[in-house]
């Protein structure tokens, strides 16, 4: 007997494990008959998962937490048994901002502290000369994109709420908005940074792994009540995803994976661009400069797929830091309970090890047991103890 499931996704490379699990037959092997539904906004994915039109979804990790806490929307507790993607985001800047930053740069161009300080100087100069504030695009208020941008610029002394403008932009509009000057930079997932570089309108300034060593950006999300009712289906889904991520991480399979993802009803962009992002070998400037990183877009490497509650705690701490919610110890516990290593391990049938710490480039190491203490170490923020 097969179980029919409807699963929503946004066309991004970090939906790879989900798409490959379905299109390569790993889900069918587990007795799951999955219909993938491509969506145009995270709000749609969240709402359709919440009201049961979707059984599961490719979801922004912070949205899974916000939904569980009832932040900004109806409260629906979510369980995340599988990390779909880590470190797939990047910050892309316009050629003009890139030139301004490089002129102010004092240090290594891939050192986020050096670029953040350069940004602070660019911001100060613009203020003196009476130019308007720089505008940064990101994909959703509850997103690692938002938090990565904020963390980075605040470390250099730029207040993301006072000194620049942060605006939400749907990923497919990012490149156009950069080209026509609507934004000066953006933080978005693959493949949109590469597309802007290929169009000759942007430079990739940072991989998100420059800012955070290990950041969970997207999770496989199900409703907590649904997970309790259907533990075998959750386990089957996780197993299908584990097999898919192993398949994707084998370099020999990459051309095939890129072809699967490139299909018009899936991500619908050129397979070669997708493969570059999977391989962590990205063109970062229109002149053809390449940059390689084995930290870029982790799908199955280094037990990346196993949820770590400390990661959820870090994301919750960012919501507190930037004034999206006041700190409450019980909310922190609820946020951590969204990430479900227990469901993951039960499906894998073996302990798969522990995922790495967030590892931010500045500030003290993150301690989930003392979020207020951790946040006090940061000067810029909307949170008051």
């Amino acid at each position: 007997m097969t179980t029919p499931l409807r699963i929503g996704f946004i066309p991004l490379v970090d939906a790879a494990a989900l798409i490959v699990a379905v299109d390569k037959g790993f889900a069918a092997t587990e007795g799951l008959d999955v219909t993938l539904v491509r969506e145009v906004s995270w709000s749609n994915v969240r709402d359709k998962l919440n009201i049961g039109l979707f059984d599961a979804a490719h979801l922004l990790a912070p949205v899974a937490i916000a939904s569980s806490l009832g932040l900004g929307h109806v409260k629906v507790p979510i369980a995340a048994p599988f990390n779909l993607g880590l470190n797939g985001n990047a910050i892309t800047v316009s050629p003009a901002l890139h030139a301004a930053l490089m002129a102010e740069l004092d240090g290594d161009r891939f050192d986020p502290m050096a670029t953040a300080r350069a940004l602070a100087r660019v911001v100060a100069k613009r203020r003196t000369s009476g130019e308007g504030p720089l505008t940064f695009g990101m994909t959703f208020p509850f997103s690692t994109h938002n938090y990565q941008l904020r963390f980075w610029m605040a470390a250099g002394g730029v207040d993301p709420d006072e000194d620049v403008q942060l605006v939400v932009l749907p990923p497919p509009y990012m490149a156009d908005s950069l080209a026509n000057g609507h934004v000066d930079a953006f933080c978005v997932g693959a493949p949109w940074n590469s597309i802007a570089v290929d169009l000759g309108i942007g430079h990739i300034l940072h991989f998100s792994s420059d800012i955070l060593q290990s950041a969970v950006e997207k999770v496989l999300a199900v409703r907590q009540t649904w997970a309790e009712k259907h533990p075998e289906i959750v386990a089957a889904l996780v197993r299908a995803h584990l097999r898919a991520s192993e398949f994707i991480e084998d370099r020999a399979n990459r051309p095939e994976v890129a072809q699967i993802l490139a299909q018009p009803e899936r991500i619908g962009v050129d397979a070669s661009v997708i493969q570059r992002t999977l391989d962590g070998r990205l063109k970062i400037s229109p002149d053809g400069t390449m940059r390689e990183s084995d930290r870029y877009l982790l799908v199955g490497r280094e037990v990346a797929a196993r949820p770590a509650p400390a990661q959820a705690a870090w994301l919750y701490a960012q919501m507190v830091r930037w004034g999206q919610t006041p700190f409450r110890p019980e909310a922190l516990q609820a946020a951590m309970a969204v990430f479900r290593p227990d469901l993951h391990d039960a499906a894998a049938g073996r302990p798969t090890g522990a995922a790495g710490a967030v590892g931010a480039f500045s500030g003290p190491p993150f301690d989930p047991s003392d979020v207020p203490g951790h946040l006090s170490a940061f000067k810029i923020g909307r949170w008051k103890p």
Partner: protein
Amino acid sequence: MSAESSPRIVIVDESPIRAAILEEGLREAGFTDVAHISEMQGLLARIYALDPEIIVIDLENPSRDVLEQMFQVSRAVKRPVAMFVDQSDAASIQASVEAGVSAYIVDGLKKERIKPILDLCVSRFNAFAKLQDELDRTKHALEERKVIDRAKGILMKMKGLTEDEAYVLLRSTAMREKKKIGEIAQSILTASELLK
């Protein structure tokens, strides 16, 4: 704004026909203060300029995520906007999501004033979807008609049949093969193309 006057409604929709249908429905129901935004560039600035109490957006619109930003604490926002954050609104949310429309409501606007507006949006969106569906089916039928006519022409020419005989041949073949007459006609066109 007094409590009795019509709340200001903004429709965010790239489909001008659907927006017109919705706007007309709202006006008929007595909601006279309705504006339409079809251009997504600088969406938030446009919305702030119009300063609406209710925003209606279609779910096919990626800019829905842009509206979510209005929940956030920001100096740029004049007043907070919240959708239905009340659990009791689950049925309304379900109906609207299924119809393909979502609404954002300024905090403090009374619920009983929102309900008729949302119901109207849901019914107009459903009506539009039905209309679209009928249009698609009509288009499809027209195209099938053309294919059958061309297949008849080929049969008449190659087998020396009259138009009626050609049609009977198509129909009997379709019945025998348990296929649609349009499918048989299409395979005749494909075959004749290959044999050219």
